[in-house]
């Protein structure tokens, strides 16, 4: 039995039009202390339908800001963001997101939290309970339907958040360091789950992470970003079929390369930053 029986029987997946994300000439600035500070600088990226793209980079490189823009929580940017050709102007049920904190509503049970995501969809009421149950099964939480979020472990709550984001069948799922708060063991476990879900579901996914290994294990491509302002520095193709083997020599070689790039880059950036911002050193 497929764990995903409702897989869009009404909308046949046409590879060209499902979840193609286009980012062109994207710039984003924040006003900090009365000055415009550029956070994202000239971002250009095409994400193919059904692709898994990971974004890594030092903190401050604007990766989370990028996701907030794509999901539509922040619409103050210049350049273009398009999903399947349509310009992104606000939030939409076509774009789901999972945050680092699960953000399940603590006053609702797991089941109620997931069903709430269907509130503004045209899913018939009669089918909702079934769809919710299927998604709880998809993230292996059957039996915990009536649990309140504080009764779930960190990994379980995060899987529940993934189910909530997937239940609306978004064309594009954004993952903002979804496993960042989990311990190492749970993390590996949820990474495997995530890979399995993506292979079952095949919606386009864009994941931001600090963890290079995680980025490589899951991503078809890994976008390496550099900070101040956030730029795309390098795009790494991970030419390995899914499901992947963590021991693959290619993954380890790529990991070493990206880590070397990130650390050398970060040191350089930081040193330059210090020169600019510390008056005592500016004299020299």
């Amino acid at each position, binding site marked *: 039995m497929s764990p995903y029986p409702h897989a869009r029987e009404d909308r046949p997946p046409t590879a060209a039009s499902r979840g193609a994300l286009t980012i062109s000439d994207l710039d984003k600035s924040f006003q900090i202390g009365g000055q415009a500070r550029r956070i994202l600088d000239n971002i250009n990226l095409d994400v193919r339908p059904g692709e898994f793209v990971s974004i890594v980079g030092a903190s401050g490189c604007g990766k989370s800001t990028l996701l907030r823009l794509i999901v*539509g929580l922040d619409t103050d940017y210049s350049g273009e963001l398009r999903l399947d050709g349509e310009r992104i102007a606000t939030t939409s049920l076509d774009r789901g997101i999972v945050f680092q904190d699960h*953000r399940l*509503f603590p006053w609702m049970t797991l089941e109620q939290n997931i069903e709430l995501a269907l509130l*503004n969809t045209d899913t018939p009421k009669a089918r909702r309970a079934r769809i919710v149950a299927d998604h709880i099964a998809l993230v292996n939480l059957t039996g915990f339907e009536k649990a*309140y979020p504080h009764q779930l472990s960190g990994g379980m709550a995060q899987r529940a958040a993934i189910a909530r984001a997937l239940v609306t069948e978004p064309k594009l799922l954004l993952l903002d360091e979804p496993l960042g708060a989990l311990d190492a063991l749970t993390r590996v476990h949820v990474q495997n789950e995530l890979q399995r879900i993506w292979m079952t579901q095949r919606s386009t996914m864009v994941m931001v992470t600090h963890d290079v290994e995680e980025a490589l294990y899951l991503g078809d491509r890994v976008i390496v970003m550099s900070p101040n302002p956030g730029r795309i520095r390098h795009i790494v193709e991970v030419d390995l079929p899914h499901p992947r083997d963590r021991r693959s020599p290619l993954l380890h070689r790529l990991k070493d390369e990206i880590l070397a790039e990130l650390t050398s880059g970060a040191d350089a950036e930081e040193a330059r930053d210090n020169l600019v911002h510390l008056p005592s050193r500016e004299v020299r």
Partner: protein
Amino acid sequence: MNGWLARFPVRAAIGLVVPALLILWWHWRTSAQIATFAPPAAVGRALAELLHSGDLLRDTLSTLKRAFAGLAIGAPLGVAAGVAMGIWRPVDRTLGPLLHALRQVPMIGWLPLMGLWFGVGEGTELIVISMSAFFPSMLNSHAGVAQVERRYLDVGSILRFNTAQRIRFILLPAAMPLVLTGITQALAFSWIATIGTELLTGAGSGLGVAMSQAQVQQRLDVMLVVIAVTAALGFLINQIFRRLRQSLLRWQPSVQ
């Protein structure tokens, strides 16, 4: 619930130790000098007398009726005002300063004015009691809605909630702990205001009326009975509401 039942006798017994010691001390003191204070035995006789005549029951019921009528008017209005002020800034800007100034006047301070406008009677008492239930409900509900976390509102925006859905599914439940704190305070305040207005207006029946009549008649024993009943009832109402609150907030990790 089982745990509570099992724990209850021990807990209640511990809570009764100090009152029992006080009564013993009281008995010992008053049996020496009868004139200055009614001894426990006399108070017991007065209680039996008041129970027998039905006066105590009548007074208690009128007081309860008044307090809950005031609460039923003041608390919902206060919650509505507080939530509205928390959600819509213009409402807060226009109504907030006035309400915050008005609440500085002790509720009993409104009695003379209300008495002039509406006469001394049920209407005036009800207004003052409602007002004392209104303000704590308003303040706490306002704070509750104002401090709802941005990250939950973001989820609402991602799920395309409209205003009504945002209020119903995010703002109200997130504010519920403080709303209930406000209602708990409203409960205590309206109880105090009820006894207070009854004491001052002294019309009809009620525990406060009974107190002031006992003062006129110099019935120390009756006064002590009424005070004890007031204290015990107030305590009981508060306990019942605490249980209710715990069951409403069972989703909170701290409320188990």
